[in-house]
C-alpha cells in the first residue's frame, strides 16, 4: 500500500472523488485525465456514431449502400428516400397519428395523475390506502399482461384501428401518480391552509396554488410521457392493424420486416423521421429529463 493514493495504478474512472479533487483538479491535464477524456470521447463516438450513420444514410441512393469501401458522406446526396416515404408509404399520415396519440396521452396524464397525486398526498378520504397500494403495485406490471384483455375489450367496443383505441389505455399511468404524489407530499401544508383561509375551495386550491407550483414536475412528466407514447410499439402494433392507423414505430417495423427490408435508404429515412423529433425535444429539455429521472428514480 503506497502512502499516496495510487492515481496511476488503475484504469481511469475507477478512482475516487477525493483523488479527483486532490489531484486531477489541482493539476488539470495529467496523463490519467487525458486518457479519461479520450476513452469517454471514444465511447461517445460509438454511441452517437450509429445515429450519424443513419442521418447520412438517409440521403444516399440505394446503389451507394452496396459500394465497398462504403462512403461516409453521401456521394450523390438525394431526397429520393424521403420522397418515397411520402409518396409510396404515407409517412405524413403516420407522423400525424403518432403526434395525435402522444399529445392526447400526455394531456390526459398531466390532468389525471396530479389530481390523484394531490388526493393521495394531501386529502383525507376513505379508500385512499387501497387506491395507493393498488396503483403502486401495477407500476412494474409488464405491458404484455394487459395486452390481450385490452385487445378483446377494444374489439368488442369496435375501437380497434381508432384513435380512442390507441389512446384510452394510456391516459392513466401509474408512473405519473407515483411522481406527482411524491411532489405533492413536499408542498407545505401551511400554503394550502392559507389558500383555504382565503376562502378557496379544494378545487381552487388545487388548480391555482398547487398546479402552478408543480410546473417543473409536470414538465418532466409531460416530456417522459410524450416520449414513451411516441416510442411505444407493442400495443399500437396489435391495436393499429390497418395502415392508415399505423403510428411511426409500427410503420417502420412493418416495412422493415416486410417487402422493404432491403431498402436501406428508405428505412434510414424512416428512422430519421421517428428519431429526430425526439432528439430535438431531448436536446432542448435534457435537464428536465435526466435530472427528473435521476431524482425520482432514486428517492422512490
Amino acid at each position, binding site marked *: 500500500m503506497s502512502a499516496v493514493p495510487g492515481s496511476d495504478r488503475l484504469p481511469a474512472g475507477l478512482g475516487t472523488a477525493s483523488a479527483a479533487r486532490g489531484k486531477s483538479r489541482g493539476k488539470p491535464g495529467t496523463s490519467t485525465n487525458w486518457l*479519461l477524456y479520450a476513452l469517454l470521447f471514444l465511447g461517445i463516438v460509438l*454511441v452517437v456514431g450509429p445515429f450519424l450513420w*443513419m442521418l447520412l444514410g438517409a440521403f444516399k441512393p440505394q446503389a451507394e449502400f*452496396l459500394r465497398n469501401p462504403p462512403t461516409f458522406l453521401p456521394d450523390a446526396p438525394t431526397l429520393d428516400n424521403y420522397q418515397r416515404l411520402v409518396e409510396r408509404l404515407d409517412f405524413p399520415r403516420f407522423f400525424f397519428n403518432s403526434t395525435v396519440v402522444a399529445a392526447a396521452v400526455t394531456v390526459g396524464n398531466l390532468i389525471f395523475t396530479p389530481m390523484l397525486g394531490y388526493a393521495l398526498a394531501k386529502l383525507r378520504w376513505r379508500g385512499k390506502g387501497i387506491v395507493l397500494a393498488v396503483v403502486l403495485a401495477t407500476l412494474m406490471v*409488464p405491458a404484455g399482461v394487459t395486452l390481450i384483455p385490452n385487445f378483446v375489450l377494444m374489439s368488442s367496443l369496435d375501437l380497434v384501428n381508432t384513435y380512442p383505441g390507441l389512446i384510452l389505455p394510456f391516459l*392513466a399511468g401509474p408512473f405519473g401518480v407515483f411522481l406527482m404524489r411524491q411532489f405533492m407530499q413536499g408542498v407545505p401544508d401551511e400554503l394550502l391552509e392559507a389558500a383555504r383561509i382565503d376562502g378557496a375551495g379544494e378545487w381552487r386550491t388545487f388548480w391555482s396554488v398547487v398546479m402552478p407550483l408543480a410546473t417543473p414536475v409536470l414538465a418532466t412528466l409531460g416530456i417522459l410521457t410524450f416520449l414513451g407514447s411516441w416510442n411505444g410499439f407493442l400495443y399500437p402494433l396489435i391495436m393499429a392493424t390497418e395502415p392508415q392507423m399505423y403510428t411511426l414505430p409500427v410503420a417502420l417495423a412493418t416495412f422493415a420486416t416486410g417487402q422493404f427490408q432491403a431498402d436501406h435508404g428508405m428505412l*434510414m429515412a424512416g428512422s430519421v423521421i421517428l428519431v429526430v423529433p425526439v432528439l430535438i425535444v431531448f436536446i432542448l429539455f435534457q435537464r428536465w429529463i435526466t435530472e427528473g429521472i435521476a*431524482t425520482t428514480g432514486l428517492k422512490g
Partner: protein
Amino acid sequence: MATELVQRKPTPAAPAAAGRSRLREDLIGWSFAAPFVILFGIFLAGPILASFVLSFTSFGLRDLTNPIGTTFVGLQNYIELLGDEKFRKSLLNTAYFVVVGVPLTLILGLLIANALNRGVNKFKTFFRVGYYIPVITSIVAIAVIWRFLLNPDVGLINITLERFGIAGPNWLGDPVLAMPSIIAMAVWRGLGFTMIVFLAGLQSIPTSLYEAASIDGATRWQAFRHVTVPMLRPTILFLTVITTIGYLQLFEEPFVMTGGGPLDSTLSISMYMYQEGFAFFHQGYAAAIAYVLFLLVALVALIQFRLIRSEA
C-alpha cells in the same frame, strides 16, 4: 383556551356533524381520484385480472365476437406450457439475455458515471447528453439501424473488420451469434440510463468518506470497492430491479432484427406470446404465457429486495 377545550368535548350533536364532514371529505377526495381510478380500473387493473381468467380458457379468434361464451379449460394451458419445447426455449433465451445483459449494462454505466463524476469537468453535459441519446430513442428505429450495421455484406461492422483482414460473420443469421448481437445492442442502448442514475447516486456520497479513506492510505481501487460500492448499494438494487424487469420483456429487438430466429435462438417470452396471441390467435394460451412472465417479474423484484435487505 378553556372554551376551546370545552367545545371539543363530544356533545350529542357532534357525531352526526363529524359524520357529515367525513362524508364531505370522502366526496372531495374521490372527486379528485375518480377520473384516474375509473380509467385505471377499466384499462389496467381490470385487464390484469381478466388476463388471469383468460389464461384458464381456450379463448381464440371465434370468441372475439362473444367473449363471455368462451370455454374454461382449467389448468390445461399451463400444463401444455410445461411440455412446450418452444416455450422452454423462449424462457432460456430470455434468461440468457437478462443474465448477461443486466450486469454489463450496470457495470458499463457505473464506469462511465464514475469517470464523469471524478476527473471530468469539461464537456460534462455533452457526455451526459451523448450517452443518454439511445435511451430516449425508439427501440424500433435503433433495431433498424443496428440490423443494417450488422448486415453481413454491406454493414459497417463487417466492412470495418474486412479492413483488418477479418471475414465478419453473419451476426444475426447465426444461431450462436444472434443473441450476443442483440445483447450488445441492448447494453449499448441501456448504459445511458444506468449512468444517469449512478451519477446521481455518486453525487450523494459525502466527500468526507473519501478523505477518510485517503488518510487511511486506501488506493483508488480500495476506495472504490469499500466506499463507493457499499454507498451505492440502494442505487445498484434499484437499477438491477428496473433493468431486469425491462430486459425480461425483450420484444422489439428480436421482432425487427431476427423475427425470433434463426432456429428460435432469439425467441423471447414476449415474442412467443405475441406469436401465439396475434399470429395464431390462441389468446387463452398467450394469456398464460403473459402470466408466467408476470410471475417472473414479480419474483425477480421480490428476490432482489430480499437479497439486499438480508445483506444490509
